[in-house]
């Protein structure tokens, strides 16, 4: 598809293409991946576009190699991404943990398809919500974003690249088969107006440089390999220079930093969208493709005079605890439609459990809608649940 770089122009674009082009707009210059349905178009577009801007595209031998390649490239100064689906994501989790531990920015796209195992390659699913949070071993917070339209796929792809760079971590960008293959009109922004978080080069003399300072500000100056600064990179617990350590005090500093850099910046990371929530008695809590049916169900229910609203997290991880407490506490019922056997609802129950005590729970309820047969939850299916709880 031809793109005009200066004038905003409305073009028909696929979700996967929007994610690739969003990342390119955010400065992507290195992509390594292993093709898998339904994410392949992302790699395909990067393979065409990256050589044009002197970037690199490498098709690796598998997903473990792919994540390893983008981590290595990122340490050498590149802005990196890989794209996969559930089976490939499972293989990448080892590397994702390494990226988080070594604070190496990178973005992993997971276009979710039916699982477990190779499952349903050409059918949508939302069953990697929890894998995006807990996929790696060891305690490490996650950042995961999940758009619900083609234009938002573009925007959140830029945002994922920026968050990865700003907080020096691996950011997961979720999509699903329907969203990834769906085409919608999108107005592409003027590329000179796109806000990009760029890597800041250290100004300290090399002998003073610490790759992992104790009290960092985000974004922070970080050296890349080849710039004359010496630092060590290891998956082992490490000190400020990156060298392995067994010391409790140094390990505590490291583990607290990994947690706090996300926990202290929740407001900067979390994004939600409320639709018709002000006077709603019933709320639907839905993300990604399921939220499209949910929004249609809200419109249908409102036409029947039922006060329903939709709360949609664009940031799945960290989970928007505060927003959930703020906007959902007073609702009579919360409906959670999702293409899995109850993953978002599990989190929602965790948060609501803290504020809905035993007495309140007698009058309020959380209604889950699960679907794992490879088809979408329809607006009518959600409307039926609305009628049941109203």
């Amino acid at each position: 598809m031809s793109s005009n770089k200066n004038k905003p122009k409305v073009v028909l674009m696929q979700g996967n293409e929007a994610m690739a082009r969003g990342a390119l707009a955010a400065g992507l210059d290195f992509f390594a991946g292993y093709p898998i349905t339904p994410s392949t178009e992302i790699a395909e577009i990067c393979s065409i576009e990256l050589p044009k801007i002197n970037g690199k595209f490498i098709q690796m031998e598998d997903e473990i190699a792919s994540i390893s390649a983008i981590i290595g490239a990122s340490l050498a100064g590149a802005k990196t991404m890989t794209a996969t689906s559930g089976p490939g994501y499972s293989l990448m989790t080892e590397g994702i943990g390494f990226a988080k531990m070594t604070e190496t920015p990178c973005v992993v796209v997971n276009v979710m398809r039916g699982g477990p195992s190779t499952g349903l390659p050409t059918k949508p699913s939302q069953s990697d919500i929890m894998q995006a949070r807990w996929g790696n071993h060891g305690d490490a917070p996650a950042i995961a974003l999940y758009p619900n339209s083609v234009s938002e796929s573009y925007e959140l792809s830029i945002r994922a690249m920026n968050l990865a760079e700003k907080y020096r971590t691996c950011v997961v960008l979720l999509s699903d088969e329907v969203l990834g293959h769906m085409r919608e009109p999108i107005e592409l922004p003027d590329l000179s107006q796109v806000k990009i978080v760029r890597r800041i080069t250290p100004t300290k003399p090399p002998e003073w440089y610490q790759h992992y300072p104790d009290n960092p500000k985000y974004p922070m100056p970080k050296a890349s390999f080849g710039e004359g600064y010496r630092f060590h990179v290891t998956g082992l617990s490490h000190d400020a220079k990156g060298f392995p350590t067994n010391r409790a005090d140094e390990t505590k500093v490291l583990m607290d930093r990994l947690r706090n850099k996300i926990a202290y910046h929740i407001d900067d990371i979390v994004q939600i969208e409320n639709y018709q929530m002000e006077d709603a008695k019933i709320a639907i809590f839905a993300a990604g493709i399921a939220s499209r049916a949910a929004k249609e169900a809200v419109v249908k229910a409102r036409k029947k005079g039922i006060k329903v609203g939709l709360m949609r997290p664009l940031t799945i991880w960290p989970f928007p605890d505060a927003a959930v407490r703020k906007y959902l506490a007073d609702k009579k019922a919360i409906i959670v439609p999702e293409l899995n056997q109850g993953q978002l609802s599990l989190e929602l129950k965790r948060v609501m459990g803290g504020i809905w005590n035993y007495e309140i729970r007698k009058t309020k309820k959380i209604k889950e809608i699960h679907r794992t047969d490879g088809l979408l939850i329809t607006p009518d299916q959600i409307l039926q649940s609305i009628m049941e709880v109203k």
Partner: protein
Amino acid sequence: MSNKVFKKEIRLSGSGGQGLITAGIILARAAVLDKVRVTQTQSYGPESRGGASRADVIISNDEFYYPEAVNFDVLLSLTQEACDKYLVNLKDSGILIADTTNIKNIVHTDAKVYKLKFTEIAMDKLGTTLPTNILTLAFLVKITGVVSENSLKIAVRDSMKPQFIDLNSKAVKIGFKLASDEMNKQ
């Protein structure tokens, strides 16, 4: 199109390799040229040829959110299997366009039915069945008016590799002509 609020749910159905997803993309591009809202989705199996395949296009001048067609205003079917499977979700006020090259039986429906041997016509007039998808799409556009004929012509031109533009532009003309003939019969 008038200023009245409209929403058309269109399903193009058949088997993999018949170009239905391509036709869906072209229809959606035409809708973009018409400056209306559009979403195109698709469903297919793991195989690149054969197996059930469908493309959904929803066109509206108002906001809509759910991306798949549920109750179709227009159903295009190129195979018996697709016709049997999806006819039940065609609105009574809807339109069925069936390629009777492959479809032998159509169960009773209150919808308006157009039956033509599109694949055979493409072979006869163009010497190949390849542009059957575009020929049938042009027929659909002329009959239903879901997008303007001019936008469709441009969308077909913009979507094809140079060596296929002529052939497919001819297919569009034939599709339009067949539709005019059908409408004159009424």
